[in-house]
C-alpha cells in the first residue's frame, strides 16, 4: 500500500485536507482532474455570509454555532465549532507561509465589491480586497477611480460605479471612471482585445512594464487616491507587484474579481498547492478516479483513468470531487448520482423538484444542496446501504448546505477537508 491517504479532488477541500495530512507526516496523494472551483471564485473565503432569512451575517462564528446546534445534517454540525475555528486558523497560517496573506475583520464579516458593484460578505480576503488600511480608505471621504484596461472585455467599470453609487457607504463619494491602455504592448500578434485576466496578469508579472503601468494609472486616476482595478496584479508575486505599484502611483489599489479565470482564486490555488507539495504531498494532475469496490464497507482500491488495470490503494480515501460542475455529482433525466463509487446521495426524486422557478429566486435552487449523504464522521453510504468507513467526504460533494444562499462554500470546503484529515489522523493513532 503506497499511501496512507488518497484524496480524490484537488480543490479547496482536497488541498486543505491534503496539507493537514501531509503536515502530520502521512503519505498523502491528491489526484486532480483539472481546474478547481477556485479558478472561478471571488478569491475571498466566506464562512457564513447570510442567515436563514437571507440577511447579511455580521459575526460568522455566531451563525456557524447556530447551524451546529440546529442543523444536524449541515457539514458544519459534523465538523463542530472547535474544528471549524481551528481549520480557519490553519488555513490562514498555511497560505501565509506560502506567501499569501488573508485578512479578517477581527472575526467579523467584511464586504468585498463584485464586478457589478454589489457588496458581498466574506470572512477572509486578500490584502488588496480587505486590510486595515483598506478599511481606513473606505471610511475616508476621498475620491475613488474605478478603472479598467482598454479593450478588456471581461469587465465593465461603469456598472461597478453605478451600483457602488447606489450603496449608502459610497453614495456621497466622488467616483470617477478611468481607462488604462497598453499601447506599447500592442505589437503582439495576439488580439489584446481578447485577452483574459490571466494574459493581463502576465503583463503585470513582467517587471519592466510596471513603471509604465503605474504612470498610466496615475494619469487615468487623476487626483483620486483610491484606485480599483479588475484583479490581475500578478499571480505568484502579487504582493510585491502591488506594493511597487502603490509606491509608484501613491494610490491605494483595490482589486475586483471579474469573469473567470479568477486571478484572486488562482493565488489561493497556487499557495495551497505549494504548501501541499512543500509538506511532502504528492499532487497527481490530469488524473481521474473511475471506480472502486466497497461492498465490504471498506473501499479496497480505486481504478483510475491513467493507471488502467493497476489499482491504486490507500488506508484512507477522501472524496472531494466537488458538485455538478466539477463532476463530483452527475445526473440524468431521472436521478442525481455520485459517479465514481455510486454512493448514496441526498436529492429529490422528481426532476421538477430540483430547481426553483426563477433563476435568481431568493431561495436559490434545491440542487445546490444536493450531495453525498454522510454520517457524523463524513463517511458515505454505498449502494448496498453500508457505511464505508475508510472513505471520508469533504467540500461541495457533501449534501446539506447551499454554498451560495448561505454564503458558506469556502468555509465548508476548508472545515470539512480539515475535519476529514483530523478523523484520519485520529484513526491512524488507534
Amino acid at each position, binding site marked *: 500500500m503506497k499511501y496512507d491517504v488518497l484524496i480524490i479532488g484537488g480543490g479547496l477541500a482536497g488541498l486543505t485536507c491534503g496539507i493537514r495530512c501531509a503536515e502530520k507526516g502521512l503519505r498523502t496523494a491528491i489526484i486532480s482532474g483539472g481546474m478547481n472551483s477556485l479558478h472561478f471564485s471571488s478569491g475571498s473565503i466566506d464562512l457564513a455570509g447570510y442567515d436563514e432569512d*437571507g440577511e447579511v451575517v455580521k459575526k460568522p462564528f455566531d451563525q456557524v454555532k447556530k447551524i451546529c446546534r440546529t442543523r444536524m445534517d449541515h457539514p458544519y454540525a459534523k465538523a463542530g465549532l472547535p474544528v471549524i475555528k481551528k481549520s480557519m486558523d490553519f488555513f490562514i497560517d498555511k497560505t501565509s507561509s506560502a506567501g499569501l496573506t488573508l485578512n479578517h475583520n477581527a472575526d467579523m464579516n467584511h464586504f468585498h465589491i*463584485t464586478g457589478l458593484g454589489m457588496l458581498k460578505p466574506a470572512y477572509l480576503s486578500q490584502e488588496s480586497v480587505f486590510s486595515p488600511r483598506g478599511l481606513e480608505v473606505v471610511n475616508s471621504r476621498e475620491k475613488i477611480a474605478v478603472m479598467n484596461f482598454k479593450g478588456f472585455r*471581461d469587465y465593465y467599470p*461603469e456598472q461597478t460605479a453605478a451600483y457602488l453609487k*447606489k*450603496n449608502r457607504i459610497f453614495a456621497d463619494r466622488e467616483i470617477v471612471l478611468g481607462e488604462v491602455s497598453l499601447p506599447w504592448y500592442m505589437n503582439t500578434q495576439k488580439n489584446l482585445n481578447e485577452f483574459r485576466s490571466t494574459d493581463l496578469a502576465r503583463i503585470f508579472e513582467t517587471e519592466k512594464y510596471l513603471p509604465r503601468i503605474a504612470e498610466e494609472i496615475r494619469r487615468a486616476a487623476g487626483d483620486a487616491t483610491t484606485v480599483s482595478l479588475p484583479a490581475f496584479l500578478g499571480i505568484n508575486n502579487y504582493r510585491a507587484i502591488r506594493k511597487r505599484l502603490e509606491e509608484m502611483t501613491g494610490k491605494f489599489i483595490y482589486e475586483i474579481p471579474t469573469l473567470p479565470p479568477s486571478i484572486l482564486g488562482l493565488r489561493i490555488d497556487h499557495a495551497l498547492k505549494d504548501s501541499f507539495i512543500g509538506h511532502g504531498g504528492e499532487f497527481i494532475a490530469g488524473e481521474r478516479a473511475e471506480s472502486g469496490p466497497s461492498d465490504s464497507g471498506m473501499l479496497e482500491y480505486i481504478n483510475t483513468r491513467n493507471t488502467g488495470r493497476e489499482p491504486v490503494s490507500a488506508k484512507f480515501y477522501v472524496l472531494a470531487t466537488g458538485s455538478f460542475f466539477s463532476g463530483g455529482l*452527475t445526473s440524468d*433525466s431521472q436521478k442525481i448520482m455520485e459517479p465514481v463509487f455510486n454512493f448514496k446521495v441526498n436529492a429529490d426524486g422528481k426532476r421538477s423538484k*430540483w430547481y426553483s422557478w426563477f433563476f435568481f429566486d431568493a431561495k436559490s435552487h434545491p440542487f445546490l444542496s444536493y450531495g453525498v449523504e454522510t454520517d457524523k464522521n463524513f463517511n458515505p453510504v454505498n449502494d448496498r446501504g453500508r457505511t464505508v468507513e475508510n472513505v471520508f467526504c469533504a467540500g461541495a460533494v457533501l449534501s446539506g448546505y447551499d454554498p451560495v444562499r448561505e454564503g458558506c*462554500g469556502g468555509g465548508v470546503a476548508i472545515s470539512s477537508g480539515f475535519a476529514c484529515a483530523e478523523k484520519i489522523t485520529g484513526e491512524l493513532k488507534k
Partner: protein
Amino acid sequence: MRRIETDIIVIGGGATGAGITRDVSMRNLRCVLIEKNDLASGTTGRNHGLLHSGARYAVKDLESARECIRENRILKKIALHCVEDTGGLFVTLPEDDPMYHRDLIEGCRFAGIQAKEIPVRRALQIEPNLNPAILSALHVPDGTIDPFRLTSANALDASERGAIILTHTRVTEILRSGTKVEGVRCIDSKGEQLDIYGQLVINASGVWGQEICALAGIELTMFPSKGSMLIIDYRINSVVVNRCRPPADGDIIVPGDTVSLIGTTSLEVPYDKIHDNNVTDEEIEVLLSDGEKLIPNVSKTRALRAYCGVRPLIAVSGESTGRNISRGIALIDHSERDGLDGLITIAGGKLMTYRLMAEKATDLACRKIGVNRKCTTHKVPLPGSEKGISRKKRIKEFSGIPDSVVGSTFYRHGQRLQSIMTKEKRNYRLICECEMVTEGEIEYAIKNLNVKDLVDLRRRTRIGMGPCQGELCAYRGSGLLQEYGGASPEESVELLHDFLEERWKGVRPVLWGDGLRESEFTYWIYQGLFGIARPVKTKKKRTDNK
C-alpha cells in the same frame, strides 16, 4: 403626448407584421409598425425554423402545400441569408404505415413539389445518424429558415424605406370615430403615451389578434394550439428529417445554425393560458423518445432548451381541434364582417407563408385606401441577401480575421457583413464564443436593428444561444449595451438579470446532465461571484448597519 400621422398602421412585429410593413413601404406608403414586445418574440420566433417544401401538407391540405412550395422558392431567392437550402428526407419507420409513403409521393406530384424516392442506403449516406431500420426514404426540397433574421431583415428594409418600427410598445386603445377606426393609442416601455393616426389599421398580431379586436369592440375567436420543441446541442443532422406518416407529435428534426430541433407537439390551450409558455416533463418525454426513433443519437446528446409557441389558428369552417383546423390564411375585412371601417385582420397561416400573407393584406389595404400599386416583395431581395459574397472575396477582404468569424457574421447578416466588420482589432473580437458573435456585430445590432434589451440582442445576433446559454457573453453583452448607449449602466445590470431569467425558462425543463452542470456554473458566476440578485437588499441592509 406624441402624435404620429401615417398611412398604414400595422399591429404585431412577427414575420407577418414585419412583412406587411416592408410590403407597404415598398409600395411607397408611410407605415408604422407597433410591437408590444420585440420583433419575432411571439409565435414567429417559437417554431422549428423549417423551410417547408409543402410535403408535410401534401396529403391532407393541397392548398397549403402549394402555397408552401411557391413561397419556398421565393424565399430561397429573396432571403439568402435567412435560409439554408439543406434539403429534407421523409423516412418511414418499421412501425409506420408503409402506404403513407405512396400517398405522399402522389400528393407532392399534385402540389408540384419535387419529391424523389431514394434508396435507404443513399439516405443513410446523406444522413449517417439516421435510424438504420428505416424502410423507405423520400427526398424533398425542405430547408431551414431563421425566423429572427427573417423578421429583422423585413423590418430593416421597411425602416430603410422610411417606415417607423416601434418595439416594446403596446396598443392600449383603438381610436374610433363612429364606425371608423382612425388610429391607435399606445404606451411605450418608458410608460409614455403615443397616438398614431392612419388611414387603415392592419391587425397582424397573431394569436393576440383576439385582444386587439376586443379593443376595437368586435369579437374574433382564436383557437390557440400550443406546440413544444426541444433544442439539442450540436447539429446532429445536416438535412431536415421528417417522419413519413400523417402529422403527429415529435416527427421532425430540423438542423438550424449550430443546433438541431425536435418538433413538435400540438395541444389545444384555453385562450387565457397563451402566456404561460411552459413545456411539461411529459412533452419532453414524448419529443425525446420520438426523436430518438428517427435519430437514435438524440438520447445521448445534451438537451439544450425546450420552448413552445402558440399557433394562431382561426376556425374558419366548423372544425375546432388543433391539427385539424386548417392552417390556411384568414384575411378579414372588418367593415364587411362587423361594419367597422379602417381595420383588417390577417391571421392563420404559417411562417412559410408570411410573405404571401403580407401581400394579401397589403393588397386589400391598398384597395381600401384607393391605391393601385403592385406587390414586389417576391422579387426584391431582403437587405443582406442582395447577392452572395464568395469565400475567396471574404478571405481577401478580411485577411487577418479568422475565416470562421467572418463566416459566422456573413451567415447571419449576408451582404451587410460589409457594414459590420472592419479590420479594427476591437471590432472583430469575440464576445459570444459559442456562436462567434463579434463586438462589431453587437454594435451594428444595437445601432441599427431596434435592440432595446439583451433578449432583443440575442434574437439579432445569437449571443447567448449556444451551449453555455450566456455564461460569459451575457455579462459582456450587458457591458457593451451600455457602452453603445442602448442602456444606462444601471439598466444594463437589470437587463442582464432579465436575460438570464429568460434563458432559464428554456433550460429549466431539460435540467439534467451537462445542462444542470452548466446552470450550476452560471449560477455561481452571476449569484456567487457577482451577487446580481441582491442589489436592493444589500442596500437596505447597509442602511441598517449605519
